[in-house]
């Protein structure tokens, strides 16, 4: 790649960053109140919310991590990407209830929603805040890691400096416009991802000739010479079956309670537009799915035919783009940045919400709304720095970090927002017990993973099932059992109406 090509790609990538910054500045005038800053404005239509949700759920995990895992282990991770029907199912099951709750009081954060359902239970809010903070750190680290990989591949720049520059710009526009700017920039970034997806899918067919030649390439002697396993192309890929289970179960049950989905439902202007929103979200999600499959398959095809060498799975997307040439590079690199930015801005806002509203609220401390915005801005900046540090320390693959974050967030939110909104029998004390069990299980799971990573333990999870599946199960089962054993709370009649809608 020539020097001017590198700078052209850099310019196209930074244009996404600058346009996002511009949208953030423009959106500032729509922030008419602290509630609007935190996400309490119900003013967006289904296309904006659909694109923003897809971009925030997709993240760099999808664009960098998934193609890398497709290249190294085959189709297993595609099960995670293909679970799109569950997206719609989530809207169908809890969408109107969540949106209805947003009519009852000032609901700008998930903590506010938990307050309404569980009569301001401080313990639930505290544990929710702590677990969401851990999940945010993991998710943000995955985005930092992806951005670093992107620019490492282009310029061999220092990972830390790259992360600091990108996150400085991201933090700047997120702190200016809060969730209003967040959703608008995410919608724009979603559009960039979809555009890259369409271009990449066409490029895949042009280069490989279709899926058949990929299967032939990996099954032949060249594929074996490149260290590729033909079983990767079966339904379950080359990973143990437990991963197929986890990577179907996790998005299917987890997507409906992900903060990216719940907070966006609350910002939709009319709940009857949820079906339209789901069509936009899943159709764009399908294009992203097609793109990541095409990139992963392209990487397999090129490596099996000796056309590229891929030394790390997370570099697969960039190696493929580099092989395809300048046009592909001009779209793929910005798409990676867009995916990382969209998720990062959401999780930064979430972290800001937690620190300025939910966490003080859990201790009975109320901060003046205007001051909350200042506290939130400081918290976002601190969280950005912490994520850079976590990414540098963990060094895990983007996809693995992404699934850790996804699992932790699902364990935190499932008992409150799925069990809580579907079942009037879910009691504050019951859900609190489930949340505490989930927090302990999460800390235990992460500790065991770290011990294993540094060779201090050889603990294997039963059946090879990833740890976060057990954390989710603990959270749900303990919440239900403890609710059955404790007396129910008196519900506000409006909350009851929202749950029965």
């Amino acid at each position, binding site marked *: 790649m020539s020097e001017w090509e590198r700078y052209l790609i850099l310019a196209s990538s930074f244009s996404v960053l600058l346009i996002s910054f511009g949208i953030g500045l423009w959106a500032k005038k729509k922030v008419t109140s602290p509630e609007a800053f935190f996400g309490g404005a119900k003013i967006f239509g289904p296309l904006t919310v659909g694109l923003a949700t897809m971009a925030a759920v997709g993240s760099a995990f999808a664009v960098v991590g998934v193609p890398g895992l497709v290249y190294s282990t085959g189709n297993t991770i595609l099960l995670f990407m293909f679970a799109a029907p569950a997206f719609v199912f989530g809207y169908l099951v809890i969408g109107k209830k969540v949106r209805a709750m947003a009519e009852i009081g000032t609901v700008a954060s998930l903590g506010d929603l938990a307050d309404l359902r569980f009569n301001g239970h401080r313990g639930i809010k505290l544990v929710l805040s702590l677990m969401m903070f851990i999940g945010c750190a993991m998710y943000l680290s995955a985005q930092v890691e992806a951005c670093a990989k992107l620019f490492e591949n282009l310029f061999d720049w220092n990972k830390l400096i790259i992360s600091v520059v990108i996150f400085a710009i991201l933090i700047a526009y997120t702190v200016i416009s809060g969730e209003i700017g967040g959703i608008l920039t995410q919608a724009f970034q979603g559009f960039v991802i979809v555009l890259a997806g369409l271009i990449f899918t066409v490029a895949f067919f042009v280069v490989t000739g279709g899926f058949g030649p990929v299967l032939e390439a990996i099954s032949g002697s060249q594929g074996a010479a490149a260290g590729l396993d033909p079983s990767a192309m079966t*339904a379950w890929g080359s990973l143990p079956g437990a991963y197929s289970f986890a990577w179907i179960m996790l998005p299917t049950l987890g997507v409906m309670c992900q903060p990216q989905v719940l907070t966006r439902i609350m910002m939709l202007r009319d709940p009857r537009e949820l079906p339209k929103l789901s069509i936009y979200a899943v159709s764009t999600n399908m294009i992203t799915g097609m793109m990541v499959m095409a990139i992963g398959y392209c990487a397999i095809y090129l490596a099996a035919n000796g056309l590229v060498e891929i030394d790390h799975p997370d570099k697969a997307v960039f190696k493929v783009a580099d092989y395809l040439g300048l046009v592909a590079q001009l779209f793929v690199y910005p798409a990676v940045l867009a995916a990382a930015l969209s998720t990062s801005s959401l999780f930064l806002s979430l972290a800001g919400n937690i620190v300025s509203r939910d966490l003080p609220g859990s201790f009975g401390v109320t901060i003046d709304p205007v001051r909350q915005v200042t506290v939130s801005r400081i918290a976002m900046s601190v969280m950005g720095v912490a994520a850079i540090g976590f990414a540098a320390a963990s060094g895990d693959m983007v996809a693995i970090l992404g699934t850790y974050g996804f699992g932790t967030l699902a364990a935190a939110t499932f008992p409150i927002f799925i069990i809580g909104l579907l079942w009037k029998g879910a009691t504050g004390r019951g859900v609190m017990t489930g949340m505490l069990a989930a927090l302990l299980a999460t800390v235990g799971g992460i500790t065991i993973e770290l011990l294993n990573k540094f060779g201090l333990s050889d603990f294997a999870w039963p059946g090879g099932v990833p740890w976060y599946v057990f954390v989710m199960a603990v959270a749900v089962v303990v919440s239900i059992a403890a609710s059955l054993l404790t007396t129910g709370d008196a519900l506000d009649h409006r909350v009851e109406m929202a749950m029965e809608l």
Partner: protein
Amino acid sequence: MSISGLLWLAMVGLAGSGHWLAGLYTLLGLLLVYGVLGTSHKGRFDLRLVAFPSLVWLAMWAGAFWLGNHYAELYSGREPEFTVFGFHPSFAAIVVLFWIVPTLLMGFGFEAVKDRWLSQERWDEFLRHVHGPDEGNDGEDQS
């Protein structure tokens, strides 16, 4: 909800003991329970809303798991005798029955049952109770 708790235990227990495919089938049962609970309106479940599109989707996923596993085992360690759109037959089952068809079915199916899921009247009635009589048509006005 108690049934869902038992299904969670069964699902993770099966997967943890190595029966991950059985765990996946259990997941479908769990989704069905949440689907039924999600249709509850004033204490009554709307089974027609469960039947379409959710139950059709779950049936497709069951088919995808069965076919995917059948062909993965049949051609384990060797090249498949045929392909579907160039895919390994086991993965073709996933692409068609797990991803593309059910995604379109759920997306457009949800739009088709929109009024049954939440009619304008029901939403307006909810708003009237929450905000008072003046704001009954809020959702309609804003859209």
